[in-house]
């Protein structure tokens, strides 16, 4: 790239950042929060705390967000607008919790079975949307999204009625046996769930860049017409990719159960918008696989940092949500316009 161009690029990034901060500053002015205190609270809330308690909370949240981002990335790169990650996440969390509660046997075995069941449930829920698209013609975008609602209410019903821990007085299931809780790393309040997501990240990156399946799925994502014309097994690719995507979402649900909440609580996977945050984390980095984990961590930090601002300066923590939206508006409209629309709006070089 010629230097003049690079300077232009740099200036426009600076302007973008200036916009984002200006909006943030405006909102703080609105609530009359002291800016310096708020900023300090943000940093403390995201990365600090006694024995780095807040940083651990950020990492714990990042685990779930990165997981959901990986799930979304696999679909998006294959041109599949699966925005039903939330439903797949709920299916995974619900099923793994119920299996762990009901299945007798040695804890480690049951835990493995429960995680596997969660992944299968997530995959199945994603496949349902895939089957609707392939064989019934329901666009994946709306089909996968609408499937979020039934599973959300089914899960809510199951933990409100048949599997409710009535004594707790809350809408939640019983605790999973203590022996199945994912242990914390020594000395910190962070469970080993993050290792699962680390493994999933490595898998997703290796899969996307070096495998035949990933290559073919990518071609389908860039141009479905092309993929069909050169005889790629488009239907099979779609279903297999969605199954992978859903399985990772299911795994995230299982990690939330065994690592964090130790039971299924109504709304625990929906309210924090893990799935949506995962989606925007992928969009932020234009679906480039190796950038996804850091992008997920960044958004987790924005959320926990916002909570820190609320504690320190009384800024409502929902400012985090606004920041995420603003960032994605400014940044994703710059980087991913070309990536998502890879097959759209490009023309021949000849006059």
């Amino acid at each position, binding site marked *: 790239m010629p230097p003049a161009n690079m300077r232009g690029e740099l200036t426009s990034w600076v302007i973008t950042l200036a916009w984002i901060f200006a909006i943030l500053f405006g*909102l703080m002015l*609105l*609530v009359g929060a002291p800016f310096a205190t708020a900023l300090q609270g943000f940093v403390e809330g995201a990365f600090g705390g006694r024995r780095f308690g807040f940083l651990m909370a950020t990492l714990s949240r990042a685990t779930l967000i990165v997981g959901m981002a990986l799930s979304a990335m696999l679909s998006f790169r294959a041109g599949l*607008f699966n*925005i039903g990650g939330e439903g797949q996440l709920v299916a995974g969390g619900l099923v793994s919790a119920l299996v762990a509660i009901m299945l007798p046997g040695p804890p480690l075995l049951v835990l493995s079975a429960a995680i596997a069941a969660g992944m299968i449930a997530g995959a199945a829920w994603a496949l349902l949307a895939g089957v*609707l698209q392939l064989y*019934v*013609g*329901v*666009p994946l*975008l*709306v*089909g996968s*999204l*609408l*499937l979020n*609602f*039934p599973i959300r*209410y*089914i899960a*809510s*019903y199951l933990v*409100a*009625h048949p599997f409710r821990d009535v004594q707790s007085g809350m809408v939640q299931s019983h605790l999973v046996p203590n022996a199945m809780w994912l242990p914390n790393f020594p000395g910190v309040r962070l469970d080993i769930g993050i290792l699962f997501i680390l493994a999933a990240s490595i898998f997703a990156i290796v899969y996307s860049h070096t495998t035949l399946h990933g290559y073919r799925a990518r071609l389908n994502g860039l141009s479905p017409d092309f993929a069909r014309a050169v005889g790629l097994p488009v239907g099979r690719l779609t279903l297999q990719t969605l199954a992978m995507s859903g399985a990772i979402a299911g795994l995230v649900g299982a990690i939330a159960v065994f690592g964090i909440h130790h039971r299924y609580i109504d709304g625990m996977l929906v309210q924090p*918008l893990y799935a*949506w945050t995962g*989606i*925007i984390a992928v*969009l932020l980095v234009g679906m480039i696989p190796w950038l996804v984990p850091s992008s997920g961590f960044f958004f987790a930090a924005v959320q926990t940092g916002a909570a820190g601002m609320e504690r320190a300066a009384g800024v*409502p923590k*929902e*400012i*985090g*949500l*606004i*920041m*995420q*939206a*603003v960032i*994605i*508006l*400014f940044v*994703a*409209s*710059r980087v*991913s*316009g070309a990536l*998502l*629309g890879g097959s759209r709006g490009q023309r021949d070089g000849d006059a």
Partner: protein
Amino acid sequence: MLEIILDPSFLASIPRFVTPILLAALGGAICERAGVFNIGLEGMMLTGAFFAVLGSYFGGSVYVGALAAVLSGMAMGAIFAEFNLRRGGDPIVVSIAVNLLAAGLTTFLLRAIFDVAGAFRDPAIGGFGPIDIPGLAALPAIGQLLSGQSLLFYVSLVLVLALHVFFARHRLGLRIRAAGENPAGLTAGGVSPNRVRLAALLMCGALCGLAGAQLSIANVNLFVENMSAGRGWIAVVAVLLTRGRPLPLFFIASLFGAVDSLSFRVQGFGLPQQFTDMMPYLATLVVLTVLSWIRLQRAR
């Protein structure tokens, strides 16, 4: 079941549920026809719901509330236009961001302005009252349906017809259709497709804002976090199914609204609330599945 459906008070409740979906879907239809893939109706609607309460509370009049809702919806439309049309962001990405922005902004402002979390209710929030139409009210069955509804319901009915005529006979309507079908034709004729789309997005925002006002200052007089609760997505489905044609849209939106209303009614009949809450989404999914299937068969 039949008893419920024929129950006059059930009939009377249908328009309350139809109106928000219909208004948002009409807005979505304008975007659809203009070739803007806008799945941010949910966010525009939620913004409208909040600002309706804000306007009504501080302005002391439902009309100020409705105006605030319309303006806030248009502002969201303008944001959509800025990032999609001018900066070239993918419409799906921009939609998702608009939805998140609306969720964040409304809850943030709820706490920043009213200092409450979750919900805000206050006697000072005025609402649209029922309007009795003398001749209509006396009619059996449909009298209940058509009379005694909020002003916004009647507005939405008029808008269905108005939009139909607009697309067929109005200059901007023609251009909106062209922007959706072959925008190069507009460019060649010296009209910027993006300006046409900007107009479409502003109109869409205004209608979604009104849809939100129906939720917060006509159906009830309060604002609850995330009170649009997926109705914007149902409107998106209605738009996709009808490809943005106003008259079919009216029927689909009415169907979805009626199921929404029914789900409220049957709560008293021993069904767990989760199942009744699920009904509108399930009905949407079923209708979407059936119509997609029929379309697929026809294409083969």
